[in-house]
């Protein structure tokens, strides 16, 4: 059972305890990281049935290698990096890597999809759009917008140069470019945004 008294401990404190094979600390760390890892791997793998297995593969490494963590990055960055590698290996094994070229047909269809969007909902299209980009591009998008990592942290997680991170983001944005204006339009229509909403002061 995760110990409530350990909730205030930092990830690093917990990891140091895990290095001594403290199972209570390990459960606390597991519980803390589980939502983020689950979410990230769900988006990366697109195979919900594999998520738990890969989360556990990741945390097994954390259990085994906790003593080797040198603190040069955040614990969550280190663990997410392990999860990324495990996830990519799983995808390689399944040979389900989508083509690096986007599904052009699906994206082009967006120009004529007013009725489809109204039927399925724009959100489904955004999800579909995210599914159409490559795992590496999807990983960058998730790590940026969901996890809030900097591009340097993402480079550490994905073990690639910073420019590669930016390139992957560039390609992901380009492929989602048709969807994003529609998202804003929908928000305007639903009254969430005023058409005259001046966003200059927004960060």
């Amino acid at each position, binding site marked *: 059972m995760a110990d409530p008294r350990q909730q205030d401990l930092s990830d690093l404190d917990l990891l140091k305890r895990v290095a001594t094979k403290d*199972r209570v600390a390990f*459960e606390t760390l*597991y*519980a803390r990281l*589980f*939502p983020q890892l*689950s*979410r990230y791997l769900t988006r990366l793998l697109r195979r919900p049935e594999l998520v*738990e297995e890969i*989360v*556990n593969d990741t*945390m*097994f*490494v954390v*259990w085994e*290698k906790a003593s*080797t*963590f*040198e*603190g*040069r*990055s955040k614990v969550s960055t*280190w663990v997410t*990096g*392990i999860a990324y*590698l495990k996830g*990519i*290996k799983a995808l*390689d094994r399944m040979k389900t890597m989508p083509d690096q070229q986007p599904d052009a047909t699906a994206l082009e269809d967006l120009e004529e999809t007013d009725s489809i969007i109204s039927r399925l909902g724009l*959100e489904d299209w*955004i*999800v579909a759009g995210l599914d159409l980009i490559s795992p590496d591009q999807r990983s960058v*998008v*998730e790590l*940026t*917008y*969901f996890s*809030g*990592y*900097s*591009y340097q*942290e993402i480079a*550490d997680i994905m*073990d690639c140069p910073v420019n590669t991170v*930016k390139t992957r*983001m*560039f390609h992901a*944005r380009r492929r*989602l470019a048709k969807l*994003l*204006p529609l*998202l*804003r339009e929908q*928000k305007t229509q639903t009254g969430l945004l005023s058409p005259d909403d001046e*966003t*200059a002061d*927004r*960060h």
Partner: protein
Amino acid sequence: MFRKGDHEAVDALLPWFVNGSLGSREERRVMDHLRECADCRAERDRLQDLQQFVLEEAEADVADYRFGFSQLMQRIDVHEANVESMRDVHRDRGWQRGGWFAAAACLVGALAFVITLNPATDEIEPGFRTLTTVPVTGRSTAAAASTAYRLSLAFDTPDAVRAALIETRASIIAGPDDAGTYLVEIHAPASMTPDALIEGLRAVEGIRYAAFQESGEHAGDARP
């Protein structure tokens, strides 16, 4: 008026401006540019919408962690029990004697190499200097002075030795077949003769049968 190069550089930074992770110097650079560039302001707005969408989607229920955690702890328990068991096997069989020690140590050492990793993933761990790279390092060292053999192995006690294979991620090429044999790949020191390897493997407790795989032969076709 901003320079074209600046526009592209700022555009590339926009996702991280939106998620608030830029350093102060880059953040200032982006904000200065946004004051002058309507296109980038519009793109910033779109990226903010994307971030909002991603965050809202994430608010969906996440499964309870406890089931997965219990599964993991069972796996860890098995792993630690097997590690202990393999240690006991080594101790009890008097590994200090003769060529059998060399062969058995070769088996354990070879099985410890993560052969099932594909070459690309062998490079992943060096990117994280914090991770132990013993399997990768050991493999690269062994690869320089080792010979890869494919063998058919069958076990008396599948739980003990097979568990060791799984735990050490030896390369299971195929199997088990109806006879319970596995086709595995093992890396042995180049100085070790094939006969010595086979003799050593057959002396390991739990291994009932060991034979080199002939090309075209399937696991289980060979006879003990």
